[in-house]
Every structure is written in C-alpha cells, then in structure tokens.
C-alpha cells in the first residue's frame, strides 16, 4: 500500500488533464479562436488512445486493486475515446449554430469520458459509483447545453431527475451488499460469496437486485426506459449520439464486470427476469420506433431495442455471451455515431431537422452523406456484410450456444420489425422527392471526417471482423 502505482490511472488522468486545459484555455481565447479547443480535445483523446495501445496486455491495479488496468478496461477505454472523438468531430459546427459554449461543451465531453473510463476499470463499488456520477453529471449538463431550446432544458431536467432516481437505486444496492458482505471491493465480495452465508442472504439478494435495476435504468432497458425518448430527442444531436453510444457502453461495461462476472453466482437467479426484460426491451423498443415521425426519436427507441439485443448476450452468460457483448458494442458504436453525425448535419441556423421529411430527396443532393446514412441504417437493421450484421450474428450465436434458441428466434423477428423503420429513412432519402422541404446538409469538413470514419468502421467490422472479434475475446477473458 505504501507506494501507489499510478500507471493504471494514466488513461483517465490523460483525459482529465486535457479537460482541465481546455477549460482553462477557454478563458483566454477569443470567440473566433475557440475552434482550437476542439482540436486540443481531440489531441488529448488521441494520446489516450495511444496509451491504451501501449498499455495493452497489462494486468495491473491501483489503490489496493480498486481500479484495475486490464484489457477489459482498455478495450472499453478505446470505445469511449473513439465515441468521444467522433462526437467532437460531429459537433464542431453544431455547437456554433446552436450557440452552445464551446469550451464547456468539449470539456464536459471529456469529463464524461473520464467517468466512463473509471466505470469500466472499477473493481470496487464505491469507485464505480464515483465514475458513474462523474459521467452522469457531465452528461446531464451536456443535455441542457442548448439553452435557447426549451426542449433541451426539459430533457436535462428529466434526465437529471430520472438519473438521480437510478443513482438512488444503485447506492442503496451498494449499501445492502456492503451490509451483507462487509466490503465494497468486488474481489472480496465475490470471495465471500463462496463461503457459507452468515448474514441474512436477503440483504445480498436485495442489494444485487437494486444494482440490477440501477444498471437497467442506465442502459434504458424496459421497464426502466421511459426517460430515453424525451431525453434523446431534446438533447443536442451530437450529445444524443454520445449518450446512446458511450453512456450505454459504459453501463454495459460495469454490468459485465460487476454483475455478470464478479457476482456470477446470482446469474441463475436473475436469468428469468433478465429473459423477460430482454424480450420486452427488444419488442417494445422496435414497436414504438415504428410509429415515430421523427428520425431522432426513432433512433432513441431503436437504441432501446439494441439494448435488448445486448441483454441477450448477458443472458447467454460469461462463457458464450461475453465476447459478443463487447464486439456488439464496438459495432453499435461506429454505426450509431455515424448515424447521429449525419443527423447532426441537418442542423441549420434556425432549427434542427430531425423528421423523415427533412431527409426527403437527399439521396441525390448530397450523395456521400446520404449513402453513408443508408449504409448505417442497413447496418443497424442487420444487413450483411456490415458491422450490425456481424454483431447480431455473434449475439444470436451466443444465445444458441447457451441453449436459448428461442431468444435467438425472438431476436431475429425483432430485427425484421426494425427493418421497416430503418428502411423508411432510405425511402425518404432516395424514393421521395424532396423539393423545398428537404434541408440542405451542412457542408462541414469535420463532420464529413466523422461520417467517413464511422463508415469505414461499419464496413471494416462487417467484412473483416476477425481481428476485432479476437480482440474482444481477449479483452473479455482478461477479467480475473
């Protein structure tokens, strides 16, 4: 305990320092020069990315192993850093048009990223909670940053209230588990699970259940999904993309490490409710997405549905479901970040276009962005050979391997439902005449970079997924 090993803190500290520099520099920069902040943030994220590559393979811990540096944490750090970078690229023009304070915006994205990195690395419930709150508070503020837009403020309020509610569940759950096992350290908790129970097992079971509810809130699983549509719709579009990708990934990271891995003896107890939750999440998400007039809201509901597919991997259990869970989160990140980047490009000085009618006729006006959007939609719907298909394939495969063929069948039927609304975007872009109604896309080169990168990832993970699959397998089984 005497000498503290700081190496495991490096990725999080790197991003944190960048955030602080961005905030400080913001004070001294003139309005016109603030574009620099975005590049500074990207630089910091890139450095963090490089660090994760250099640290790859390490098995280390800090502060009495409450914060771990293993491939699992590094894998998720890479997802968070990538998602944050794509978000920043896609927001450079958006924040200017919406008159959002640039310095705070980028700094908050970075703070949220720090929180996520801690969440994925936490091996202690209190440390996990710290990460969660760092992330959540930053994202609450990000949601409400478009101050001239009333829906943005409403969304922030809603998100804050609901988030606080979920926090309460998590904290209470942590308290109960501490009461039952006498520790918040996950290794000690899982060790005490193996011994015969001395305290009333009800405390522990109750604690795990509350923890589970808290996670379900954060990933937006039915019946804890009510906050998602309004919050996703009201938040500035790049923030929505960030939430639906990185926040979800962080919650699943914690879920995988804490509930799926460390508390795995409870797997069988939770299997029944989780099974119902997965089916309800997929089906309700898809059914509600069908009837949305707004693409942004549709994507919000579809993100609920995707959480449902991810729950299938959790049900399949550690042995089969772990690597597909990680792989799916990567594929989901690239295609969803890309879709939200395209959506963000519909913003002009007066309003943000987010309805199907705003996409009308764009297929032949802005061929690249529309083609990219079409590919993101096809990928989300699960058409091969795109990332979304490979992701789903491995999730459904894990369900079959774990003996849940019925879940795989329900999953593919849900995919079919989702095809209907994803194709509607393509119908609007290519098959309906736009004329005056169709907005002209913003011609931001940074946004094009974000879209192109996401597109590259979507195609790469669909056609040659072998490397990424291997990578997610190694990462998951690095959990000790």
């Amino acid at each position, binding site marked *: 305990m005497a000498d503290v090993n700081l190496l495991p803190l490096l990725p999080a500290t790197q991003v944190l320092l960048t955030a602080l520099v961005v905030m400080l520099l913001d004070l001294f920069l003139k309005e016109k020069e603030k574009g620099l902040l975005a590049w500074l943030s990207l630089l910091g994220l890139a450095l963090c990315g490089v660090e994760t590559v250099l640290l790859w393979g390490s098995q280390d811990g800090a502060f009495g192993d409450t914060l771990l540096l293993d491939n699992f944490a590094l894998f998720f750090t890479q997802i968070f850093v990538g998602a944050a970078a794509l978000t920043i690229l896609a927001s450079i023009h958006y924040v200017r048009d919406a008159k959002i304070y640039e310095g705070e915006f980028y700094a908050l994205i970075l703070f949220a990223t720090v929180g996520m990195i801690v969440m994925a690395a936490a091996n202690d419930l209190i440390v996990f909670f710290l990460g969660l709150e760092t992330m959540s508070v930053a994202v609450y503020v990000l949601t409400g940053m478009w101050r001239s837009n009333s829906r943005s403020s409403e969304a922030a309020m809603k998100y804050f209230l609901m988030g606080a509610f979920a926090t309460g569940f998590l904290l209470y759950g942590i308290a109960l588990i501490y009461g039952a096992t006498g520790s918040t350290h996950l290794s000690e908790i899982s060790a005490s699970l193996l011994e015969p129970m001395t305290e009333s097992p009800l405390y522990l079971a109750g604690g795990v259940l509350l923890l589970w509810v808290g996670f379900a809130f954060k990933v937006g699983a039915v019946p804890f999904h009510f906050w998602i549509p309004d919050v996703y719709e009201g938040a500035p579009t790049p923030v929505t993309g960030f939430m639906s990708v990185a926040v979800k990934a962080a919650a699943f990271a914690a879920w995988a490490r804490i509930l799926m891995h460390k508390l795995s003896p409870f797997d069988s107890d939770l299997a029944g409710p989780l099974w119902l939750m997965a089916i309800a999440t997929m089906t309700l998400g898809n059914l509600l997405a069908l009837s949305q007039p707004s693409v942004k809201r549709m994507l919000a509901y579809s993100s609920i549905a995707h959480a449902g597919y991810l729950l299938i991997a959790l049900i399949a259990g550690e042995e089969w479901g772990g690597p597909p869970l990680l792989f799916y989160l990567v594929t989901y990140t690239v295609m969803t970040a890309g879709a939200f980047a395209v959506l963000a490009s519909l913003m002009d000085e007066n309003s943000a276009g987010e309805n199907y009618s705003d996409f009308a006729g764009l297929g*032949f006006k802005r061929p690249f962005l529309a083609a990219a959007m079409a590919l993101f939609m*096809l990928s989300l719907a699960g*058409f091969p050979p795109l990332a979304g298909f490979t992701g789903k394939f491995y999730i459904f495969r894990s369900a079959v391997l774990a003996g849940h063929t019925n879940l795989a069948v329900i999953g593919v039927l849900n995919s079919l439902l989702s095809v*209907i609304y994803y*194709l509607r975007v393509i*119908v609007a872009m290519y*098959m309906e005449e736009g004329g005056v109604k169709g907005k002209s896309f913003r011609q931001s080169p940074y946004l094009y970079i974000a879209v192109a990168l996401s597109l590259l990832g979507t195609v790469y993970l669909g056609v040659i997924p072998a490397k990424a*699959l*291997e990578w997610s397998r190694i990462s998951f089984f690095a959990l000790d």
Partner: protein
Amino acid sequence: MLAFASGNLTLLLAVPVIGAAVLMLIPRRNTQGLFACALVFTSLAFLWSLNILFQFDATQGEMQLVERVPWMRFYGIQYLVGIDGISLFLVLLTTFLMPIAILASWSVQARIKEYLFFMLVLETGMLGAFVALDLFLFYVFWEVMLVPMYFLIGVWGGTRRIYAAIKFVLYTMAGSLLMLVAIIYLATRHAQLTQVLTFDVLQFYNLQLPFHEQVWLFLAFALSFAIKVPLFPFHTWLPDAHVEAPTAGSVILAAILLKLGTYGFVRFAIPLFPAAALAAAPIIIALAVVGIIYGALVAMMQPDIKKLVAYSSVSHLGFVMLGLFVFNLQGTQGGIYQMLNHGLSTGALFLLVGMIYDRRHTRIIEDFGGLWKPLPIFSALLLVVTFSSIGLPGLNGFVGEFLILLGAFRVTPVWTAAAATGVILGAIYMLWMLRRVIFGPISHSENQTLQDLNGREILILAPVVALIVLLGIYPQPFLSRMTPSIDLALKRVLTVQGPPATVSHLADRNTSHGGR
C-alpha cells in the same frame, strides 16, 4: 497469381464489383460511358463464365473449381466457393442475362449511375449465392442481393414502387432471418456432434440429425426459399414487385432471383435435412400443384400483361417445385432444366412487355390488338416466346415440363394429372393473351403508327430466342452436365437412415423403378 487461374470463381464474383467501382469514377453526365462500362463488365463476366463452362468436367458430380480461404478462423467461417452441374447453368444464365438486362435499360433516364451500380452489385450477389458453399457466406450473398433489388424497385419503379419495394424486402427477410437462426443452430449441433466447428455445407451433408430437429431446421430453410420461389401461398409479394419494377428489374427478378429459391431447395434444404424433406414432400407437392393451377387461373383474369406474366411465374415455378420434390432423376432434371427455361422465356416476355410499354406507355391488354400489322418483328418474337412458355414441342419449355411430369407421374399420378391441367390452362391464358394483343383488327388508332423493334432491341432478344430454340431441340449437352451432380444429390436423399413410414413409401416407389 492464383486469382487468375483459368476458371476461377472468385474472379467471376469480382468482375461486376470492379465494374461498379470503375462506374464510380465516370462522370455522371457521360451516360454513354456509364452504359458502356456496365456493358463491358457484365460481358466480361459472361465471357469468364464461358471459360468456367469449358473448365467444367462434365463427368463429375462433385464440386469443382473449389476455392477455400479461412475468413473468421476462430468461428469456422470460410470463404468457400465451388460449382457443380446444378449451379453451373444457373451461373451461366445469370451472366448471360445481365448484359441483356443492361441493354434493356436504355429507357432509364434518371440517375443512371446509381442504377447501373446497383445492377452490378446485384450480379455479384446472385452469382455469389449460386456458388457459395459456406452457409455463412451464402447467407451474406443472399441478403446482399436484397438491397440493390430494393433500390431498383423503389427508385426506378412504377407508381406504387415504395410499397412494392418494402413488401419485397420484408417478405424475403421474414424467411431468411429464421434461416439465419437455423444456420447458427446447425453449425452448433455440428460442432457438438463432430467437434468440428465449420459452416461448410459439404460437411453438413454428412450430419445425421434426429428427425424432430431436422423438421424444425427444414421448416426454417424451406420458408425462406418458399417465399423466394414463390411457393403458394407465399407468392403475394411477387405480382407487386414485378409490376412495379423497371423492365430490367423484372427480368432479373423473374429469371434469376426466383431461381435462387428453387436452387436453395436443391442445394441446401433437401440434402441437409433429407428425412424432413421426404416427410414434407407430400405437402410441398400439394402446394406446388395448387400454385400451378391457382397461378394459371389468376393469370388468365389479368388485364395487365406484366401481371399476367408475373402470375404465370407462380404457375411455372410450381412445376419446378413439383419436379424437385418427387426425388427421382427425371423430376429433378426437369426441375432444374425448367429453371433455365423459365429464366429465358419469362425474361424474354418481360423484355417484350417493356418494349411495348416504352412505345405505348400502357400494359393493359385491352389497349392493344392487331399489333401483327404495325409490329411484325415484335409479334413474331412474342409468338415464339409465348410458345416456349406454353411448352410447345421443339422449344425449351416442352423438355422441362415433360421431364417433370414424367418423373412426377411415377410417384404421384393423381397430383401429376392435376398439374398437367396447369399445362392446358397455361396454353389457354397465353394464347388468349396473344389473340387479344397481336391478332384481330386494330382497335386503337394509336397502335397503327407504332415503330417496330429497332436494332438494339432485336439484338437483345435474338440470343435469348436462339437459346430457347437450342434448349428445345438439343437438350443433351445441358442435361448430361447436370446428371452426375443430380445423381449425387439424390443419393444423399434416398439413402436417408430410418425414414418414417410415409417417407419410406415414397422412397420405395422411386427405387423400385430402378432410380432412373
């Protein structure tokens, strides 16, 4: 190095994609250049497929020209392609019809670049599905075809194009997604039973699953293929898609895409799950015969020529299914032969309908009549193609239908007799259509001044009609190349271990006749 070996299938798959990439480099305004590019690359693919035909060893029934490259090693997924006597001619049919479909797209005005791009991608998708021997790879190609076809119907189609395009995609996906689960399940079971993790169809052939598992898996595969065929009662997407699709889209849809359904039965559903296929045969035969008669009756009542041809497809593919599910040499030979025939004659019919539509902007039979006078070449070609579709001796349709009925009669005389009435009904609606379109007096003055087919249009139709005649009078080179593969496929089905009672009955009848 290897990629340029003679008869290489990967090169065949690559040619259209390379064409699509080259197409992207040509400026949008240069429509002649765009068409020329698409034409050159589809023709190159055709020439290469002829090279494959020459490389093909006609005496062998096994897979040939096999290429195997690991794709996702840890999951046993490989890039595995090969060709046998069953897929050989379907590949040739595809490469043969694609340049024709491009030539027939001259009337497409808007967004030619995207149109040709999708045509080329579609070609790779179809060829890939015909040669893929890894189930994962097959599924990828199977779904890849959907997207370009969706765009072709949805962007360049008729007035109800969006509805038709979405219906087409949803119907097809409904079947194929369940097939995906079945593929995963099959691979999982294979890995459990043999400790070999693979998606290789040839290895799956040797797997002997218990009957109840086979039934579920067969149902999942069969649903997917039955929708594509389409087998009655899964046919309702077909008329919409056909009527709304642009001419070339209809040609490809009818001539090639539907064949993927029947091909799927021959290559996957039947040999992978022989016991279930034998058990399901009576039901499928019944549905096929119902489809034959139903399709013919509905076709008879259609006022729109394109719809008439679309429903005739339901009827004709019923014959193919009947042939495939009696499990003897003649039936299967006839079924596969009839796939080619239907591709040629229905493809030609859609081309002719498209040509007359370009002139008159209507497809309603009532609006025509007496076209023989102003359009002699058109009428002569329509006559030949219609006769081929009816199954007139001397043309291709006769050979296929005759073989199917011959094979089917040995197994199920009653259903065969019912199917034979479909032949008669087919003659009725086709000849009735002919009478109302090209014979009689000219009832509409607009028809008097119509221009007959020009050089390009004759060039499009001439090779198709030539093949129609060739397949009619000299089927031997085609049948002889199919036979070894069909023998092999049938052996897999009929040597099935311990079939249930109803099944052995069917199998006995076939073997007691000596198998041939």
